[in-house]
């Protein structure tokens, strides 16, 4: 009963966190990051103003744009909802799972991560969207969904013991998955690096088109493509490793990872050839966060078998 309760709260927290990453990406690509110049309030109000008259005198109204304010504030409100859901999950962990160190400490870690990232959100705003801090904000979010994905699969295993008994696991698979996760993380860092550099160039060269900005990047941009294609072959190799594994879930997940990587490469090429359309950027970022979580879930379906 408590197992199921915790699993549900972990699953809801995970799904909400993924939604939050989507909305966070939306803030970024729509350029709404400074929609509210203050934090945590928006133009001095808990509910963003709808007209200029509602802005208090001490706050500069120059940047007021009701659409951007609500996009930014939507991100913050969803952040609060995610925070509450993780708080509830952690409360369940503290009450019922003190003896399960995996769940107990991971819950505390996720609570810490969500609070830290909320606080970092304040710094994002006060730094006027410093690209490095914006990237850090996303990286913390990736650690958060990783921890939450881990909690979800760990708690699922608590009451689905029977489903996990048929898995063939080798050291090779385990090691490959760890490497894949690390490589994907590096790939994401390279991607944020590209975006950071584009933004730094764009601030000093506001007249450059998106295509010209891409051209202005140094050759380091190719690393992202090269590693991306390497990951494609790597995931093909993983599919091959799983060919003898007849357990549905892990095989499904491996093919999903393979498909996601193809999809990510496709989106990446779209961005190059069509001057970085915002919606594509959004899904490219969001897709990368999916990969990070799915690999953790896959790994822990296997890890379970190993420890038996």
């Amino acid at each position, binding site marked *: 009963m408590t197992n199921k309760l915790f699993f549900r709260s972990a699953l809801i927290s995970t799904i909400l966190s993924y939604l939050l990453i989507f909305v966070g990406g939306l803030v970024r690509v729509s350029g709404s990051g400074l929609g509210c110049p203050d934090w945590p309030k928006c133009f001095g109000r808990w509910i963003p103003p709808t007209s200029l008259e509602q802005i208090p005198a001490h706050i500069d109204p120059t940047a007021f744009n009701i659409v951007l304010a609500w996009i930014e504030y939507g991100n913050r409100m969803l952040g609060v909802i995610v925070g509450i859901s993780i708080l509830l999950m952690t409360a369940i962990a503290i009450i019922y799972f003190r003896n399960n160190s995996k769940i107990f400490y991971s819950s505390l870690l996720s609570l810490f991560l969500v609070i830290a990232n909320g606080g970092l959100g304040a710094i994002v705003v006060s730094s006027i969207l410093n690209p490095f801090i914006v990237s850090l904000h996303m990286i913390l979010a990736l650690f958060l969904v990783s921890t939450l994905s881990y909690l979800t699969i760990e708690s699922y295993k608590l009451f689905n013991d029977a489903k996990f008994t048929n898995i063939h696991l080798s050291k090779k698979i385990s090691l490959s998955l760890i490497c894949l996760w690390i490589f994907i993380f590096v790939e994401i860092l390279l991607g944020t690096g590209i975006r950071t550099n584009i933004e730094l160039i764009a601030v000093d060269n506001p*007249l450059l088109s998106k295509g010209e900005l891409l051209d202005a990047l140094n050759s380091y941009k190719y690393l992202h493509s090269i590693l991306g294609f390497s990951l494609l072959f790597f995931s093909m190799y993983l599919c091959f490793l799983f060919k003898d594994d007849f357990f549905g879930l892990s095989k499904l997940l491996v093919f999903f990872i393979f498909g996601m990587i193809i999809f990510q490469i496709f989106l990446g090429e779209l961005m190059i050839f069509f001057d970085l359309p915002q919606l594509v950027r959004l899904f490219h970022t969001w897709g990368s966060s999916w990969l990070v979580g799915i690999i953790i879930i896959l790994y822990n379906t296997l890890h379970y078998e190993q420890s038996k």
Partner: protein
Amino acid sequence: MNSLNKKLVIAFFFIFMLGSFGFYVIDKAAKSRIDNIGFVGKVPSFSLTNIDGKIITEKNLNDKISIISFIFTQCEGACPIMSVNMATLQERFSSSKDIQFLSITTDPDFDTLDVLNQYSTNYSKNDNWFFLRGDILDVINLSEQGFFLSAALLPAGHSTRFVLVDKELNIRKYYEGTVESNIFELQSDIVTLLNQG
């Protein structure tokens, strides 16, 4: 349809909805940017002298996006920051012929054309930045009646705001010339106006 396929269909539908939502929000944000550069009024007629002796009137603002500031050379507080910020904008938009800058002195007694000329060399790297001088009463009138900016107790009481004027001589928006986030805003508004044609 088995339960997995059903879940997949729901998942795809959900992602499709998210994508549509994202598209809607992105589009809405882009449109709001244009709407947000308001209309304050028309630039009044004026006549001021540039450092090269040329008379500059409102007609020189035709077909250019203009950024206007009020400064004086002996000012030690806001003006140096304002002029550095304007110099930054001048440099960043140096490849565009559609943008120009005007700095009007609020201390014409001290700021002769020579003094202004000397001052300009500290900041301007191009000939699209005019440093203008006129009768003090004209300057007060231009600031208060023309641009709706306070001009009490000149020279020090001048406004520290930048005025954005579009190609049709409409006063579009004000920006605090000493605040980095405002300059950032001004920069993106200039790009928005330029893209509009």
